[in-house]
């Protein structure tokens, strides 16, 4: 199988998986005891002269649930794939896509620095502790890794906010979205969320890069390099990092996608950043079905395409991988 066929196959599979996932969301919607019907029915029943049954029927008509399931399904699928996601019920009649696009920059604002920092810190600490195994630094790094994993993100966030925001007053407690982007104020209010997310993200990368690098620490080519008198910096960057980077690349993508989904929601709520996670959260609180559905699907799509990217990058980076086997 050539590389092109492989990519085409993966792409087809991704489209298929997306199709299935969107269908599942439709089934869930159809099966849910619809809160909206009863709400509309309640509103309609408050007008005198309509019976409860009439009101319910009117509500169904308004929501389109009186049509057969199959028609609703096709309509739903077409709307979903043409990005015709409807109007947000809570945002004063704004388009759902518009609200998502408005929120995305704020998510990027803290997730881009987080990504860059955690990759640099995680990988370099991991490589260093692999080459200095069982040293004091290695133990400290391992401890830090466990700490970063075990501490609940949101809890760490509020503790930091209390210490540096409420007690010391160094950073604002509430995120100010209208501050200019490239300013000292913005930097100040981004520090804490970035610290919280970096401690969480670095952990996995550090442990993983350490384990990967350890496989090469004992390798023959390393002994040769050392015997030739290659400096330890060059050994780490050229002889260990290069082969270890391939599997690292793959965990990197899936790890960072996790950030967009679960951690970002909690951190955005704690620091009141008006990004994608907070949008999802508010949509749930305000019972805004189109918005809940769309933000969820955006998260799922990020995950699905991230997976595709990961598979392809793996085959591009590692020539030993054959396209035929999927293990």
């Amino acid at each position, binding site marked *: 199988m050539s590389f092109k066929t492989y990519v085409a196959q993966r792409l087809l599979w991704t489209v298929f998986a997306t199709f299935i*996932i969107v269908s599942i969301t439709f089934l869930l919607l159809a099966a*849910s005891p619809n809160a909206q019907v009863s709400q509309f029915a309640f509103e309609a029943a408050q007008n005198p002269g309509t019976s409860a049954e009439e009101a319910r029927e009117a509500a169904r008509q308004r929501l389109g649930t009186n049509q057969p399931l199959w028609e609703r399904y096709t309509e739903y699928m077409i709307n979903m794939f043409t990005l015709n996601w409807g109007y947000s019920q809570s945002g004063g009649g704004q388009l759902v896509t518009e609200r998502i696009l408005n929120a995305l920059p704020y998510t990027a604002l803290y997730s881009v620095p987080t990504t860059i920092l955690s990759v640099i810190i995680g990988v370099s600490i991991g490589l260093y502790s692999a080459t200095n195994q069982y040293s004091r630094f290695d133990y400290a790094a391992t401890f830090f890794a466990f700490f970063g994993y075990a501490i609940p*993100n949101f*809890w760490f966030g509020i503790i930091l906010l*209390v210490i540096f925001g409420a007690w010391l007053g160094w950073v604002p407690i509430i995120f100010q979205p209208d501050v200019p982007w490239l300013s000292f104020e913005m930097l100040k209010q981004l520090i804490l969320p970035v610290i919280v997310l970096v401690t969480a993200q670095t952990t996995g990368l550090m442990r993983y890069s350490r384990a990967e690098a350890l496989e090469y620490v004992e390798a023959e080519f390393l002994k040769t390099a050392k015997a030739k008198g290659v400096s330890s910096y060059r050994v780490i960057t050229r002889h260990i990092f290069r082969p270890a980077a391939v599997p690292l690349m793959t965990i990197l993508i899936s790890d960072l996608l996790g950030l967009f989904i679960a951690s970002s929601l909690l951190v955005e709520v704690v620091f009141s950043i008006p990004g994608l996670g907070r949008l999802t959260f508010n949509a749930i609180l305000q019972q805004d079905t189109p918005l809940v559905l769309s933000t969820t699907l955006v998260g*799922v799509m990020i*995950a699905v395409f991230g997976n595709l990217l990961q598979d392809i990058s793996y085959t591009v980076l590692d020539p030993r991988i054959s396209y035929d086997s999927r293990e």
Partner: protein
Amino acid sequence: MATDTDPDRIERFEDIDWQATEMRGGLSAVSRKAFGLLLTLAAVCVFFLYDYYLVRKRKPTVPVIEWDVSQVDWMFMVTLAVIFFYVLLPLYENPRMTRYYWREFRKNRAAVFSGGFLLFVFGTGLVGPLLLPKPEIALELGYQPPVFTSVSNNYPIQCVGEAANGRCFGTFQHPLGTTGRGKDIFRLIVYGMTVSMQIGLITGLIIITIGTIVGAVAAYVGGLADEVLMRYVDIQLTFPTFLLYLLLIYLFGQSLFMFILVFGVTSWGLIARLVRSEALQRTEEEYITAAQSAGAPNLYVIWRHILPNVSSTVITAVTLLIPSLLLYEAGLAFLQLGDPSIPSWGQVISAGRSDLSFAWWISTVPGVFLFFTILAFNFIGDALRDALDPRQTTQE
């Protein structure tokens, strides 16, 4: 599960399980363990039917101790029964292997501490709710500080302990203080232990069961079944469970039962993959061929040779999976999207969030417990990987 015979080890003659050897004919003869489990499950079923048909809704099932058995409680009973018959009983019946595991496990001191801590949490969570009354709201007792600490007199309405120099001191009546609405934090922590253990153990059991069955079937049956199952796992692994749960609670309402079900039914993908690849390796080995040529049926081979061999991988993976479940639960409770009627640690953290600047203990105490529980599961997972699988050298 883990203690069934490990073929890599030399068995002494007295270790041969003659009963199991005699039931070679298939699974028609049920082993003693399975019989005991079935009996217990039947008892739970009878109890359940009694509750379902004879006890009116919202009435306590067991009136003496005012216990209205919830859906989660039922699942927890079944889980405990399985753990008793398939973990504790084999460990007791097989003292030599138990001693071996203990010797291996003991080498890792952090893991021994973690094990002690988790046993403490588990025991307290199991017994505590029977001894301690439920934490009640008592507004006049709000913001009591923990013992040996004090808070400015402006916050508590009424100081239970000593009040001096404008500060209210904590008492042993509320050793860990109270929340803003006067709930005793010590009791909340004990009740939260029950919730954490329920989440960890029930969800763990669901994940192990589904993951192992799917993985073993995919590896052993192969062909189309393998392809379909593993493709499904692909999709499931890409779908973020957290978002699925958000969607589901939005559509169907929130409860601990829902949480356990959703995370149990959708997080087994990784386990299934592990079991499959491990089982594929095992099927190549001679003892499987030997068993097959001696006429052992497929189910027997899977049950007797494949499952015991993959169990160490599965248990380790699940131990490392449980902490993320606890973190998700706490996160959801913090977002007020958890089950509001369940006193989980996340709920307490969330309750104390806005008071953190003066009443630091409300959020901090449950946070510390959560932190150590997650840490303990991680240490144990690492140690189990070393202890249960002598083939694998640790990558530390």
